């Protein structure tokens, strides 16, 4: 068995450590066994065992180690059996974890892909845009190669589908960040009575109190006191391990934790998210051992791991001096502090450092980290004094042996949420930092993101923001100063960038972008922050530029001779940090509607089709018969015997009230004032421009009550528009949408009367219940509205019953019709039957520019009424020549070619002269028939119309008079006496 490495770099117990020394945890990394403690992350467990190479970089496959230790180490990604791209710096270890670094060839220690670095001279920024275009056929090859080399982890396609719940939540005030400012803001607001939610990305609260300011005399027991106060407030909730990753309109904030997405609606928002520690740019600033001072402090205070044995601290602020003291106290030999600033440190921390006998070099930069063999660690730092202009003087450089460099040269505000919320950031010259310039109403900032650094000031600024938010939300007695307590001292260096003739001074570690890459992008003309980002991919890696955007902007500004204020930043977009797709994927909230009889259709073998939001039977499968034959047999059953079709998808509205007639007269083109009770009439609706938008039937149930049907897709929209017009016209009318409350079926065919009569108390005798009559009564025991209609061109009854009775009625009808050979029929047979009758389907035989005269529907338009929707426009259209006409066409009976499809073109001469809207083989007429819009000169019956169908064949049909079948309507209504 392989020997487990010892935790050689583990320190003695630290006051705020997150590890449980009682619980050792064994893990395997790259095939070797290691031990850590519960509470360790992959990175810290390995670092404690002396492992330095945790991953390989994206492009050049350079060794990389711990850099930020706060979830931004995007070169230390691991994969295991289930997951990939695990961030080792925040992924907690568990017993039995077996992980390896992503995207290596032969392991992370001696990744063979590292040889790409030898060609780095030939892989300048944007090389893939330029180099791999020709020959074009080879691009897929190059692409595959590049994707393999320059990629991240492998996706496991066999991973089981994971669905995560979504949570909805509300609060008065959301506070982002649990450092001193965030905690004091949340406490201040909660003390004023607000319902406050505080979210913290880290798994424990405290922010910098947990590492940077840990164990300092000035902090003492501050964190415990703040958390105690917070715990005593029942209206203050703290959620750790929760990232506010997106801010949308009206303070809708996306919160992510390890399990799910929470959609939070906050009435107010305080952002106290702090800052991201920023690296310095010098040669080999990426190698294992070079890290942010805050990462070194996290290692010491949170994980009790010694970051290095011998360190150089590169500082440009007080925080660097604090780090030097922390390191020395943790047993690291701090060789010296190299301060970029010529004036050095003014605070008492300079004496603290000097008191530990750590030499301080002012106006000095790290010029290069000296690489150990294989670049798997560093063996020293090459220091170099800076001249008055801040440029390095390499002649006077000096080599200091060390295995670690801790950098503290500046901070970038964690302002993603602020900027998404609409805050405008401005560059503060004294602080050398972006700070919120203008905040939208209800959005507040506090702490370091607001440019406030001293601990006391941060507490005060938090209190100020919390009280301001309370005042905004209407809490009396919560006055607070408007201005944050900012001081003049800069915690960020204006240009922590040191050029080196041999390069490898990285600006963006995620994407391996070097200082020269930015220079080259600029030379090629990509000279704005947004263009630079897109061309060089600066800031486009997994950490989204949290360590590179600010230095990138500083470099861009310097190269262009501008101020940072004018260079600006790239747009901040959601999400601020990557989110698992499983958290985002979810149910789609667009329900599919089913009629009440759906289950019966399934039992009858229906093939379903999607019709708008509905699922409808297209036809009923018969074993051994093909689709076309089945549809034709269904149609023949209706023509010869009897069939029944579910028309429950029709819109069903009840329109009632004293002004019901006046209202319908205004909404529809026809005339209804004289429609008698118990009678129904066809309805056509136009919009204000006169275009046909819907049709149906109006049945008058009482003088002030109509039952109206609409087309299947339009019910909701029509009902909604009706309500609005009723409001606009101030009419006393009520529109009830009963579409879902009623089921409906159409019983059609010569034997429909004899089947229905025994099931109903309504007298179906033709003289008692004539064509277009409507009767209320009972059908199969259910209260029913029965309409005599002729949509499919046969004697028929449309039976509307309450939805919960529909199945029973359907069953009884099928049972009663068994002897007569009843057959359920689907949408396709219905379409065929109505085509034979020349009846339009709105939206199929009409489009957004069809008006009644074009479709031969003038009979349904009564232009001499006082008003209806579209009337004025139609009167204008009447004065213009028609541009097209809807006609019927038929192919000769001998035609055996393909049936034209919708939208196939009618050709006249060499020009497009129209288009097909519907076509089918009619079993009744034994020929292919259809309808088409054609130019008016082609509309006379008998005119040949060539149709381009089935690819490029031209076949000639002839215009025929509509309808194709039963022009006298003799089959659907009683014969005239």
């Amino acid at each position, binding site marked *: 068995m392989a020997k487990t490495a010892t935790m050689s770099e583990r320190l003695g117990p630290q006051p705020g450590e997150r590890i449980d020394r009682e619980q050792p945890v064994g893990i395997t990394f790259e095939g070797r066994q290691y031990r850590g403690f519960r509470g360790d992350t992959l990175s810290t467990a390995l670092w404690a065992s002396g492992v330095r190479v945790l991953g390989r970089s994206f492009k050049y496959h350079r060794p990389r180690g711990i850099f930020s230790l706060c979830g931004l180490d995007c070169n230390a990604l691991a994969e295991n059996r289930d997951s990939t791209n695990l961030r080792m710096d925040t992924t907690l270890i568990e017993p039995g974890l077996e992980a390896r670094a992503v995207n290596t060839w032969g392991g992370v220690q001696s990744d063979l892909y590292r040889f790409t670095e030898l060609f780095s001279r030939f892989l300048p920024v944007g090389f893939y845009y330029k180099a791999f275009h020709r020959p074009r056929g080879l691009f897929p090859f190059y692409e595959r190669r590049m994707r393999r080399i320059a990629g991240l982890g492998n996706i496991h396609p066999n991973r089981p589908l994971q669905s995560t719940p979504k949570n909805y939540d509300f609060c008065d005030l959301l506070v982002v960040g649990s450092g001193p400012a965030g905690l004091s803001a949340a406490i201040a607001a909660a003390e004023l009575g607000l319902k406050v939610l505080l979210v913290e990305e880290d798994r424990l609260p405290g922010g910098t109190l947990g590492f940077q300011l840990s164990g300092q005399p000035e902090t003492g027991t501050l964190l415990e006191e703040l958390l105690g106060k917070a715990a005593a407030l029942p209206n203050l909730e703290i959620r750790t391990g929760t990232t506010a990753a997106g801010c*949308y*309109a*009206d303070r*809708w904030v996306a919160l992510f934790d390890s399990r799910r997405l929470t*959609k939070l*609606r906050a009435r107010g928002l305080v952002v106290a998210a702090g800052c991201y520690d920023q690296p310095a740019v010098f040669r080999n600033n990426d190698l294992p051992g070079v890290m942010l001072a805050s990462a070194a402090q996290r290692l010491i205070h949170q994980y009790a791991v010694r970051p290095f044995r011998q360190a150089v601290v590169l500082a440009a602020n007080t925080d660097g001096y604090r780090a030097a003291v922390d390191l020395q106290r943790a047993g690291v030999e701090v060789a010296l502090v190299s301060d970029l600033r010529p004036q050095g440190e003014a605070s008492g921390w300079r004496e603290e450092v000097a008191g530990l006998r750590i030499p301080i070099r002012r106006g000095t930069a790290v010029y290069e980290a000296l690489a150990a063999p294989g670049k798997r660690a560093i063996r020293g730092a090459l220091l170099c004094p800076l001249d008055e202009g801040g440029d390095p003087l390499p002649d006077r450089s000096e080599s200091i042996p060390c295995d670690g460099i801790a950098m503290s040269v500046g901070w970038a505000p964690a302002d993603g949420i602020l900027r998404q919320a609409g805050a405008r950031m401005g560059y503060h010259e004294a602080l050398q930092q972006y700070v919120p310039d203008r905040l939208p109403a209800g959005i507040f900032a506090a702490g370091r993101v607001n440019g406030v650094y001293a601990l006391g000031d941060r507490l005060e600024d938090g209190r100020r923001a919390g009280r301001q938010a309370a005042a905004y939300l209407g809490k009396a007695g919560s006055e607070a100063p408007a201005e944050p307590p900012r001081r003049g001292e800069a915690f960020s260096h204006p240009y922590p960038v040191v050029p080196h003739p041999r390069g490898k001074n990285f600006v963006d570690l995620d994407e391996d972008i070097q200082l020269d890459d930015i220079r080259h992008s600029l030379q090629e003309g990509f000279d704005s922050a947004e263009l630079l980002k897109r061309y060089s991919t600066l800031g486009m890696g997994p950490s989204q530029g949290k360590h590179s955007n600010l230095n990138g902007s500083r470099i861009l500004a310097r190269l262009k001779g501008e101020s940072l204020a004018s260079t600006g930043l790239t747009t901040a977009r959601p999400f601020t940090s990557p989110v698992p797709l499983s958290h985002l994927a979810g149910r789609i909230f667009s329900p599919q509607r089913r009629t009440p009889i759906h289950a019966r259709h399934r039992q009858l073998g229906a093939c379903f089709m999607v019709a708008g939001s509905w699922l409808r039977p297209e036809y009923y499968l018969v074993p051994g018969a093909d689709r076309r034959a089945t549809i034709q047999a269904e149609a023949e059953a209706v023509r010869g015997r009897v069939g029944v079709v579910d028309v429950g998808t029709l819109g069903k509205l009840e329109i009632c009230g004293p002004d019901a007639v006046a209202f319908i007269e205004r909404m529809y083109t026809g005339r209804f004032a004289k429609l008698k009770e118990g009678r129904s009439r066809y309805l056509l609706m136009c919009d*204000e*421009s006169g275009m046909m938008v819907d049709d149906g039937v109006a049945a008058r149930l009482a003088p002030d009550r109509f039952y109206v049907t609409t087309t299947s897709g339009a019910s909701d929209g029509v*009902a*909604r528009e009706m*309500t*609005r017009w009723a*409001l*606009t016209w*101030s009419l006393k009318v009520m529109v009830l*949408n009963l579409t879902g409350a009623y089921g409906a079926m159409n019983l059609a065919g010569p034997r429909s009367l004899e089947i229905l009569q025994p099931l109903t108390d309504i007298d179906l005798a033709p003289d008692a219940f004539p064509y277009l009559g409507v009767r209320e009564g009972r059908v199969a025991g259910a209260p029913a509205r029965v309409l005599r209609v002729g949509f499919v061109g046969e004697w028929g009854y449309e039976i509307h019953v309450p939805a919960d009775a529909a199945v029973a009625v359907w069953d009884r009808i099928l049972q009663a019709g068994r002897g007569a050979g009843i057959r359920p029929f689907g949408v396709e047979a219905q379409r065929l039957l109505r085509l034979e009758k020349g009846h339009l389907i709105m939206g199929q035989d009409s489009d957004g520019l069809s008006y009644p005269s074009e479709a031969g529907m003038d009979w349904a338009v009564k232009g001499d009424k006082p*008003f209806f929707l579209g*009337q*004025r*426009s139609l009167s*204008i259209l009447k004065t213009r020549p028609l541009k097209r006409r809807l006609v019927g066409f038929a192919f000769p009976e001998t035609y055996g070619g393909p049936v034209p499809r919708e939208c196939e073109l009618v050709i006249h001469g060499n020009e497009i002269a129209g288009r097909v809207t519907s076509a089918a083989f009619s079993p009744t007429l034994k020929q292919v028939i259809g309808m088409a819009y054609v130019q008016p000169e082609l509309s006379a019956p008998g005119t040949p119309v060539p149709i381009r169908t089935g690819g490029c064949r031209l076949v000639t049909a002839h215009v025929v008079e509509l309808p194709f079948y039963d022009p006298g309507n003799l089959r659907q209504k009683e014969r005239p006496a």
Partner: protein
Amino acid sequence: MKVMRCPVNGWRPIQEFSYGGAFRPMPQPGECSNRQWADYVFHRSGAAAVKKEWWCHLASGVWFIAERNTSTDEILETYLHGEDGHHE
């Protein structure tokens, strides 16, 4: 995701609402010129401004008027048709 105040149901998420177009008084169809009518039917101004719009709360079917600044997408006021806004 925005929220909007329905004059009947109070603050609701924007997905519960449907936009119903600009609020435009109809000219007298019998009296206006063809040009005036065509202007009413076809022409809409896309210029950013505070606009009066029809909105419908879908779940309850309530139509109302919203005054919205289309350059900032800020909803200034909502009220039922016939009840004037506060700053008319």
